[in-house]
């Protein structure tokens, strides 16, 4: 038993070393913003040209709207989002004690709706959920990401990291193969980037819409021809958690604009 445990530990350690080799040193981390064209940067930088701000505006309206059987708005509990929501998105996904697992910001909104507003949950990627999460995350613009500070999250971060390093799909690629090892190169003419989720939910010109980090992850997973996890799946949340903790210290830019 003890021997077997020791062997398992040793093989885990051995397996960890080659994986560590490709990780990006903190001083070389770059936001996706630094990879995009000047024209696209100009859209993100101007709040009256950034289409993500349309969702933020809608989110502000929804924030104040009374809904559900409890007839309460987000603002009735949380007050002025500019102060109460500042920095919140920068520490999500966060550990939920009741569920004993991490929840992302979309799930937090729906938990609030279920528990406090007694309203029906909003569908993933629906306009209203994107608008609310964009509005909340917008309050954290410029705040340094601090996801993963909670020690209860450690095993989930580790699992997310494992998934990031795990080769999968018909192309047999891991996230790390592109985003740790080849981020300074291009794939079909597009920058690969380091996969730091600093600006979600963000407006992708390709999507012609705002989208969540999960949407982005799912399209990456389809890209390597693997079966994408469902929205809200614990595996996806763990991956989000790992990516956010990997970007710790970087500034939030929600709503970002990407090609």
């Amino acid at each position, binding site marked *: 038993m003890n021997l077997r445990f020791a062997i398992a530990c040793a093989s885990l350690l051995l397996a960890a070393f080659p994986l560590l080799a490709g990780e990006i040193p903190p001083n070389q981390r770059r936001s996706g913003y630094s990879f995009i064209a000047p024209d696209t940067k100009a*859209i993100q930088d*101007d*709040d*009256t*040209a*950034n*289409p993500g*701000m*349309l*969702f933020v*505006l*809608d989110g502000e309206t929804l924030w104040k709207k009374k809904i559900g059987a409890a007839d309460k708005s987000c603002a009735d509990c949380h007050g002025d989002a500019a102060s109460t929501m500042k920095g919140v998105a920068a520490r999500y996904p966060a550990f939920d004690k009741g569920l004993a697992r991490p929840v992302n910001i979309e799930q937090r909104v729906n938990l609030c709706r279920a528990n406090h507003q007694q309203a029906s949950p909003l569908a993933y990627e629906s306009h209203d959920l994107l608008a609310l999460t964009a509005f909340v995350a917008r309050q954290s613009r410029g705040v340094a990401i601090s996801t993963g500070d909670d020690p209860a999250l450690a095993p989930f971060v580790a699992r997310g990291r494992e998934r990031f390093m795990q080769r999968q799909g018909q192309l047999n690629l891991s996230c790390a193969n592109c985003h740790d090892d080849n981020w300074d190169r291009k794939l079909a003419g597009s920058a690969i980037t380091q996969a730091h989720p600093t600006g979600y939910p963000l407006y992708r*010109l390709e999507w*012609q*819409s705002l989208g969540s980090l999960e949407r982005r992850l799912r399209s990456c997973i389809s890209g390597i021809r693997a079966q994408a996890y469902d929205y809200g799946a614990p595996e996806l949340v763990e991956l989000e958690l790992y990516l956010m903790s990997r970007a710790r210290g970087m500034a939030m830019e929600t709503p970002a604009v990407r090609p």
Partner: protein
Amino acid sequence: MPAALVNVPPKARRGDVIEIKTLMSHIMETGYRHTAAGDVVPRDIITSFTCRYNGTEIFRADFFPAIAANPFMSFFTVAKDSGKFEFEWIGDNGFSETASAAITVE
């Protein structure tokens, strides 16, 4: 009511060339796409945008299916008098939205 963003400088000197920027939320569905079942997704676009400066039309644009979602417009005019810019977007399915912005010309 869909969100719109207009950017007009609040103040300008008489004779200044000023930039006006507008952003309107709209899906701009082309009418050329099909669902998985093969049905055409009906066209739903903005067809016309107008800007009036104290009642006088100074800019108009016709929109077509190739224009991206959430259309962004940027154009220039000369600041003549204090007053109001009025914007109007008209589109398919009875879409009609307005916005306005004030300017002080010194």
